[in-house]
């Protein structure tokens, strides 16, 4: 079953602002009838405050998946994670009146979630990531002078032609699932959800420097997975 918001993706190429683009491009028509997805968060917030239940459903459709994934990296089981996510939605509803919009809606929601999940999971505040400090490209790929001996092959424009879309997504999703928790959280919020680095640091209560290290490792591993699938198989 494909999610009704499968076509709402953050455009991260120039990062910063989340620009929602329709994929696949289908000018002039919505991809699905139930699709609320192109509506900006601000508009959903406005409707939600006006008591529109559908706005809440749309917000849930947009963010519940990421919330669940984020919660899962703090707590031991899916059942507990679902509970944390439900608590978060209730806290969001109850907090609506007091939400002043100093951060974006999603940053605010993810922060509530992370705080709750952290408390529930009783995971101690961040002993940070230095442990996983291996190189993003295996040393065997370089010669003694530090230049590539097994250079990356060219596949960037071909990924989507050579791997069927569903498989590509599945591949990346399972690669993300197998990242260490800290890296997974950062990649999820930055690259899947399209939060800015500042927003991610605030949600996860980590420094910019740590955020970059985690992002670097996480993206490096995702690239390796793509390379294993695409590189040199011609």
């Amino acid at each position, binding site marked *: 079953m494909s999610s009704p918001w499968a076509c709402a993706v953050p455009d991260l190429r120039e990062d910063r602002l989340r620009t929602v683009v329709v994929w696949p491009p289908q000018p002039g028509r919505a991809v699905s009838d139930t699709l609320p997805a192109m509506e900006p968060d601000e508009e959903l917030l406005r409707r939600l405050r006006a008591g529109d239940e559908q706005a809440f459903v749309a917000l849930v459709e947009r963010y519940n*998946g990421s919330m*669940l994934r984020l919660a899962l990296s703090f707590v031991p089981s899916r059942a507990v994670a679902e509970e944390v996510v439900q608590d978060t939605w*209730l806290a969001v509803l109850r907090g609506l009146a007091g939400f002043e919009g100093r951060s974006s809606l999603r940053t605010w929601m993810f922060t509530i979630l992370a705080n709750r999940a952290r408390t529930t999971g009783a995971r101690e505040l961040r002993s940070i990531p230095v442990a996983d400090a291996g*190189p993003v490209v295996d040393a065997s790929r*370089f010669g003694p002078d530090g230049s590539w001996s097994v250079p990356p092959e*060219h596949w960037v424009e071909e990924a989507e032609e050579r791997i069927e*879309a569903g498989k590509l997504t599945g591949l990346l999703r399972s690669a993300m699932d197998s990242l260490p928790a800290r890296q997974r959280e950062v990649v999820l919020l930055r690259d899947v*959800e399209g939060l800015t*680095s500042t927003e991610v640091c605030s949600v996860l209560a980590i420094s910019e420097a740590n955020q970059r290290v985690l992002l670097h490792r996480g993206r*490096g591993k995702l690239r390796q997975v793509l390379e294993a699938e695409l590189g040199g198989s011609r």
Partner: protein
Amino acid sequence: MRLISRRGLGAGLGRGLVCQQAVELVTLYLEGALRGAERRRFEKHLAGCPHCTEYLAQIRETIRLAGRVTPGDLTPQMRVDLTDLYRRWREEG
């Protein structure tokens, strides 16, 4: 200088980066966290190195494709539960 000591990889001071160092700087570069001389050194390396240029392109593509990932479907049960939650909240207030 900081780069070298930070990365612990042994290219000489003042010389260009080697590929093995350059790939470790990609995220800093994309995050806009490489400044001044560090940034120029990185860009100079890229200008002369098709492989690291390819690597950078692959990381950008990885980011773009990650942006396509949908984090998971909302199960019908969750939708029902959350709609209930909304209605209960409405009654609260």
